[in-house]
Every structure is written in C-alpha cells, then in structure tokens.
C-alpha cells in the first residue's frame, strides 16, 4: 500500500533516507510532500489528501486533532530539532554569539509565522537581547529550506537553520555554531496520523517505523535529538 | 411591370451631421445609376439596402420582403452582391480563394455563372495564385467585382466599381457587366461619378442631394428632358432604339434606322444587319443648321423640329430639344447661337450630328 506524508521542510534530507529504508523493510510505499509546517497545515485543514503529517512543532498537530482532521491520540514526537547559526564562509565566525553581538550583516531566519524554526530563531535573538537591533538585518524564508538557500547561495551572510541541513550540506568548509538549547523553546517535532490515513496500513506502518530504533538512529545521525 | 417586380426602398437614418431620407421605387431589372455629389449619401443608401447600416424603413426587392418595420433579414441572407467603394479583399486568402469565397456559399443549383467565365471576362487567370497585397489597384478592383458576381446575386450593388480602372480595362469589362445584367436579368444599383459611364450603362437614374432623392426616372425619358436637374452637363444626351440596316465594310461604318431617320456610326464586329441596337447621341455632339450642307465632314444630317428650348441651363449655354420623326434629340448650344439663329418652337432645322456611339 501507499501512504502520502506531509513533511516539514527541515526534515527533507532525513525523510529521503528513511523512506528508502522503510520501503525496503515493509514493501509499502511512501510519497512525501515538503513545505513549511504552516503551509502544510493550511492545506490539510482544507482537505489535502495526506495520510500523515510530520510537523516541525507540536502545536499544529494538536490543532488538527482538535478540529477532528487527525486521529486523536495518534500524535507523538519523532525528533527534536537543533538550531544552527550557519554561514558558508569558513572565516565569518568561530563563536556565533560573538558574531551576533558584533555587527552581523544580513541574517536569514525562517518565517516565524509558518516555520517553527523561525520562531526558535526569534526566541534566540530575544534571549540575547538582540532582537530589536538585528531586526532590520533579518530576511526570512517561507520554509527553513528556503532560509537555507539564502545562506547557501551567499546572499545572506549567515542564518539560523536546522542542524540536519548543515550536515547534508556538501559544500566546502563553513562556519557553524550550534545554538544552545537554553536559548529557545525545544523544537519538539510531532507526527500525527490524519483521518484519511486512519485505515491505511502503510500509514500506520510508517508511524510505527518512525518510532522504531532504526529510524530514530538515522534521525539522530542527521543531527536531531530524539525524545 | 407588376408591383412585386420592382425594388421599393424607404429608409431613414441619421449621423451627427447627415441624415438619409429616401423613398425609392426602382425597376426590378436593368441598371439604375445613383448619382450625386461626394457626401450626398450614395454609399449610405447602398449600405442600408445591403443591411449593413441599420436604418428605419422598408425594403422589398422583387418578390421578397427584406426589411419591414418589425423585421430585417440579416445581411448574409439577402441574395445580393456588393462591390465596395474601397476594395475589401480578404488579405489571408489567395485571389482564387477570394473569388470563390461567395461562390462556395451559394447552393449549387442557384449558381448561374461559373468561375471560369468570370476569370475570363475579367482577365483574372494570371492573378489566381497571388495574394491580394501583391496586386495593383486596378487588379484588386477586378477581383472584387469577380468575387461579387460569383455569388449569382438577385441584386447587384456597385459602388464606383470602375474608378481605379484604365479606359481599356473599363471598355473590356463594361460589355460583360451589360451581358451579366442581361444573362442573370438582375437589377443593378450602380454608383458612379462618371457621367459617361452612367449614360452608357444606365436604364434608370436616381439623383441624390444631401441625403434626399431629388429626381428619379428612366434614362431615356429623363435625358431628353431639357429641364432635368441631372447635372450631366457635357454628358447630356439621348438614347434611341434602332435597327442596323446596312453595313459598309470598306469604311467600317454601319447605318442604323430609327423612327425619324437614319444615322451612320462606326461598325463593330459583333454587329450585323437586322440587329436591334441602342445608340447614344450626346447633346454636345449635336449642332444645328438652318440649311443642309453636304460639303462637310459631318455626315449625319437630319431634318428636325424645335420642340423646346431650355435657356441658360448653365450660364451661356442652352439646351434645345428637337424632334426627328417621333424621336427626341438634345442639342447643347451657346445661348448666343440660339439667339442668332432665331430658333423658335416648331421651327424646321437641320441637325448636324458629329458623333454617334453604340450604347450597348
């Protein structure tokens, strides 16, 4: 059987690895659609034919269950994201904190309205007391994937992205600062079974697979913490 | 001619500074010339008849009612053909396809004329595969005429169809128009500024001024009137019916006898003894003498009676109507000559006719 999964953009690279392993193991098939958590949520609320939703936060899966679009009680955390201040320029900074407190130029973040990683980035700046001074320097991408492109193409000097993306980056040396968890609310990423997938064996198998040790190992390997 | 064999047209239509208001009763066969100054409404009248211009009114053509107060046939259902003042060939179609455009849309059993005939009459064969943009002005006009003829219309509207043609082409085409008129026996409304063309072709004349009809009538009758408002001027004249009595091959002349005398004119190949012909005698070609003078080049000398004198039709010029037998003639003379010769009604004179032309 086949399941369609809506996946938060930060999880794109990891998802590809997981899918191939899953399909090998179970013979089921998984189709993934990527986007910012916000956009996927809006689509699901209006009937998008997804079976499973892998969000980048806990809030939106909860809201889906509340609106009876998702199966109540099926929500669980599958990963905890780590935020990284990243630049493709290896000489830009050693210590990200210092860099931020200096005079950073254009800084890319995810759109806080749609990408949980964007919310986390804002929280970091607020906790550092830099939110107001840096605001004019911020450019935001719709999803965290787009944010990453801003930095990867050199148009933004640095940006808050997902650690998984940095690990997947095949470019040359870079500057990266793993943001301490204390500077933002945990990026607890939740999965939930949607009504449409309630009777889909592949969807259920997928969720079981995601909870499983093998999947969790891959997720950790890519730069997430696991619950 | 019964009521239903005529064309009756009553139209009213208004532009900003111009109003058309006509009530016409025209013969259902032959050529009617529509005549009048630039801007007097000739084109507008034809457009009303074709249904291209919406106008209040009434239109019946032969036995068909084309427009009433409550109903108006759409243009494409009126079996007419229209040769426009500005040729409107379809630029995306070859000459051949232009010519056949209307032909193809006429049911086969209603076709009375073949494409080959028309190509031949109008000399179109070498042009068939050209695109209209590559034609000269006169060539375009001939194609437009051919395209209209090929619909075998029941009424033909022509808006200065020959204006871009040279004398020779005109002379080549006119006989076919005449033949067509006779073959198809359809009425033709013909707008032209050429008085010579009108005098030659028309059977009936409509004279317009500022959107109104100021005179209408059969050509012969009207032309022989000295008071007529047609400003044919130099082209005033009469048309008379006669029969060829003799052909003089040596001098390429032939003699036409008519009620009132005989006239010599240039012989043409298609004429032969016994044929009926129409000849045109222009008023400007008729002079008057009190005696017969045979020692001069003018060979048509006819005794006649002065029937009417219209003095000063234009300053310095008078028109004199003469009767030879029962046949009226017009002579265009200076008023001084009229005075000098002391012409009076009923007086006997000799008409000297310098030139006589076949009318068809």
């Amino acid at each position, binding site marked *: 059987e086949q399941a369609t999964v809506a996946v938060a953009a930060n999880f794109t690279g990891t998802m590809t690895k997981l899918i191939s392993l899953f399909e090998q193991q179970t013979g089921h098939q998984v189709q993934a659609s990527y986007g910012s958590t916000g956009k996927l949520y809006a689509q699901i609320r209006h009937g998008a034919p997804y079976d499973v939703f892998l969000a980048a936060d806990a809030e939106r899966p909860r809201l889906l269950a509340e609106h009876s679009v998702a199966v109540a009680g099926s929500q669980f955390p599958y990963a905890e994201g780590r935020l990284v201040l990243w630049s493709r320029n290896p000489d830009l900074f050693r210590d990200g904190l210092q860099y931020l407190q200096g005079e950073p130029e254009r800084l890319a973040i995810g759109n806080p309205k749609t990408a949980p990683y964007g919310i986390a980035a804002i929280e970091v700046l607020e906790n550092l007391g830099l939110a107001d001074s840096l605001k004019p320097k911020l450019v935001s991408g719709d999803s965290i994937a787009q944010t990453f*492109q801003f930095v990867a193409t050199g148009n933004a000097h640095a940006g808050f992205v997902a650690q998984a993306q940095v690990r997947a980056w095949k470019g040359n040396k870079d500057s990266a600062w793993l943001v301490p968890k204390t500077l933002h609310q945990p990026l607890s990423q939740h999965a939930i079974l949607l009504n449409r997938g309630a009777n889909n064996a592949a969807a259920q198998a997928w969720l079981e697979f995601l909870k499983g040790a093998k999947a969790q190992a891959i997720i950790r390997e890519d730069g997430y913490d696991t619950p | 001619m019964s009521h239903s064999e005529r064309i009756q047209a009553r139209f009213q239509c208004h532009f900003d500074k111009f109003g058309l208001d006509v009530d016409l009763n025209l013969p259902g066969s032959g050529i009617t010339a529509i005549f009048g100054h630039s801007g007097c409404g000739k084109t507008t009248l034809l457009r009303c008849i074709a249904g291209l211009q919406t106008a209040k009114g009434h239109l019946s053509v032969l036995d068909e009612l084309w427009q009433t107060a409550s109903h108006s046939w759409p243009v*494409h259902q009126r079996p007419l053909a229209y040769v426009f003042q500005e040729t409107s060939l379809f630029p995306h179609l070859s000459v051949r396809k232009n010519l056949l455009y209307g032909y193809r*849309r006429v049911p086969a059993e209603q076709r009375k004329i073949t494409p080959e005939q028309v190509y031949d009459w109008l000399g179109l064969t070498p042009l068939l595969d050209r695109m209209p943009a590559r034609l000269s002005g006169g060539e375009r006009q001939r194609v437009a005429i051919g395209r209209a003829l090929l619909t075998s219309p029941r009424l033909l509207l022509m808006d200065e169809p020959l204006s871009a043609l040279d004398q020779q082409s005109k002379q080549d085409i006119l006989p076919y128009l005449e033949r067509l008129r006779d073959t198809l026996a359809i009425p033709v409304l013909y707008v032209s500024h050429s008085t010579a063309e009108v005098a030659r072709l028309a059977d009936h004349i409509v004279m317009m001024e500022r959107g109104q009809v100021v005179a209408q009538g059969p050509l012969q009758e009207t032309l022989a009137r000295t008071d007529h408002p047609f400003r044919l001027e130099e082209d005033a004249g009469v048309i008379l019916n006669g029969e060829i009595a003799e052909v003089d091959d040596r001098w390429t002349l032939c003699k036409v006898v008519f009620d009132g005398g005989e006239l010599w004119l240039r012989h043409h190949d298609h004429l032969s003894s016994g044929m009926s012909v129409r000849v045109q005698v222009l008023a400007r070609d008729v002079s008057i003498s009190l005696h017969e003078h045979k020692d001069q080049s003018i060979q048509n000398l006819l005794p006649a009676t002065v029937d009417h004198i219209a003095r000063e039709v234009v300053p310095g010029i008078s028109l004199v109507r003469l009767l030879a037998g029962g046949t009226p003639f017009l002579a265009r003379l200076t008023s001084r000559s009229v005075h000098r010769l002391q012409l009076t009604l009923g007086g006997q004179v000799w008409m000297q006719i310098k030139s006589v032309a076949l009318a068809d």
Partner: protein
Amino acid sequence: MSPEWQAVWLTLKLAGITTLLLLIIGTPIAWWLARTQHWLRQPIAAIVALPLVLPPTVLGFYLLILMGPDGAIGQLTESLGLGLLPFTFEGLVVASVIYSLPFTVQPLQNAFLSLNENLLEAAATLRASAWDRFVSIAIPLARPGFLTAAVLSFAHTIGEFGVILMIGGSIPGETKVLSVAIFDHVEALEYTQAHWLSAGMLAFSFVVLVSLYTLNGRFQPGVVR
C-alpha cells in the same frame, strides 16, 4: 515511469488541456468584449483580468476554500457526485483555467479589436453567416493573437506554481507537476537534479516556441504594402 518523467508528462498534460479549454472558453469572451457596446463590457473585462492581481498562493487558497467541502463549488461538485476537486488533476485544470484566463482573453480581444470591419461586412454580403464569418475571416486574421494567447497560457500553466502547490499538494502522478518537482529538489538541496530538470524544461520550451513562431511567420499574410 520514473517520477521525473511522470512530472513532465503531467505538466504537459495539464498545460495542454488547460490551453485547449482556455481557447474554447476565452475566444467567445474575447469576441464579445471586442465587439459589444454593452455597459457590462468594462466590468466584465476587469473581472476577467482580476485573477492576475491575486498572488497565486492566495488565489489558490481561496480556490481551496471554494472547492473544499464547505465551499460553494465543493458542495456543487459533491452533490453532482464528482467528489471534491482540490488535490485532483481536475482541480488543477479548473484552477489553471481560472488563473490563466486573462492571458488568453487579452491577446484575443486585441486581435479581434484590430480586425478590419470592412472585411466582415464584405463576408456578410458574400453569404457568410455570423458564425461562418467568425470562422473564415476573424479567426484566421486573428492568428497572431491566438498564437500569443496559446503561448502565454501554455507557458504560464507550465510555470504555474503557487496555485498548484496550494490546491494540488504534490501527489506524484496526480498533481506533482514539473514546477513542483523542481521546487522539491531545490528545497531538498538536490541542486543537480533541479538544474537538469530546469535546463531540460527551458530547452524544450525554447524549441517549441521557436518552431511555433517560425510556423506562424511562414503563414503571415505578409505586410507587403
């Protein structure tokens, strides 16, 4: 079929069907707009142009609402037993048609406006009915307009993205068109694939466009005088 080819095929199918529908729908609208003196002319012309103004995603969003289970269209299609349109190929077609309508109507309307009225009148006197005149005179003479309308509509549908993402999701073989596929590659940092697909798409479009234009030039009646 590889997912890539699937996307290409889906895209061409979508663009083809959309263009066809658009020409069918757009032609009478453009004809009417070009020739009527009705007071509704300007308002209707404006309404036709409106889809242009809305950001595609926003348009998509509203279509999603309209076509969704609570929306007017959604209820209609459900009551007709057609199910819901969003996230189906048919839904994409409907959305693309609405979105690209102005690209069809505007060029056609201009082409019809510049038609020489004399030619239509001449055709009428040559026994051509209104429909006949339209087919035999108006359409051939408006050919550059049709070409432009078709190219703009086709290309625009191929490139369309916001609306499709919104109401299509990206379901392989059903709604995952090329633009979405490229986008996915970009977002997944698979730049090589993205580059290849884009280059292919560009090359293909280039060839199609050049052939179309050349063909059109060939048949041009020709501005000779």
